[in-house]
């Protein structure tokens, strides 16, 4: 039940912000500070989520095979690899490191 509540709240919230963008008159959200903040908010959230889902297990910080996988993804990104290859590199390296038993 809790999961359905989370799904419902997320679906409603995400739909409302999408619609809001299409409906509000131009100029209301078109202020420099609002725009700057809106551009930086995903940066903060994505960085925190990447770190948490790589270096933590639930609420406990850990260093495991996922760190190697993420490093591989970072290298792929630096080499300007396409999105598909970036995700594949992370998955393959994580699986590889686990298979070796590190």
């Amino acid at each position, binding site marked *: 039940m809790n*999961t359905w509540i*989370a799904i419902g709240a997320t679906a409603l919230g995400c*739909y409302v912000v999408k619609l809001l963008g299409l409906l509000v008159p131009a100029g209301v959200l078109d202020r420099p500070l609002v725009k700057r903040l809106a551009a*930086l908010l995903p940066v903060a959230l*994505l960085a925190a*989520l990447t770190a948490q*889902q790589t270096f933590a297990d*639930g609420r406990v910080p850990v260093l495991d095979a996922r760190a190697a996988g993420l490093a591989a993804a970072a290298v792929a990104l630096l080499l300007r690899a396409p999105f598909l290859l970036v995700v594949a590199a*992370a998955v393959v390296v994580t699986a590889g490191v*686990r298979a070796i038993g590190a």
Partner: protein
Amino acid sequence: MAVGLSGFAFGVTSAGSGLTVPQTCALSLLVFTGASQFALVGALAAGGNPLTAAAGAFFLGVRNAFYGLRLSQLLALPRVVRPFAAQWVIDETAAVSLAQPTRRGARIGFAVTGLSLYILWNLTTLLGALGADAIGDTEAWGLDAAGPAVFLALLAPMLKTGTERAVAGLAVLLGLGLLPVLPAGVPVLAAALAAPVVLWVRGRRERVREEGR
């Protein structure tokens, strides 16, 4: 292709996080914005309160409002169509539409990209959710690394200047540092504060520099 793989990865991740197949598919059908969906299932898997988890996903979705703002001027859709078009206002449709030189091109680009991605994303989510059972131990296949890799791939092109890097760095510190002390799902919301904090510090520094002149 890339959307197909992330849809599949999302299906697998979501099923691996303990969501059922209908729950996983409902997310892709109703939320239809990838980063928010990954964030939600991650937060739920970590044992987060449903509303805290939804709040994190919601804040990631806020960027779509700004795409909508630019698209509404470009596409000039009739009011009755807007509630239906809204669901397709995402990173990819905005990128394609904004790249078109004419309004007609932008409308076609929006509709074609929106429809094909909606179908692809939902089909691959279903395949991933169903496949997760067949795959068995998703961790042995390294599939738990897909979520963070998707986040990193979305994040990397945003790190253009020192401001973005400072925000990302501070967010990582807050997100990890607060993990043991705050309830699940809350640290990521606290990490979002990195954005206003860095903006405020930079604004202050610029003011000091101007006064020094």
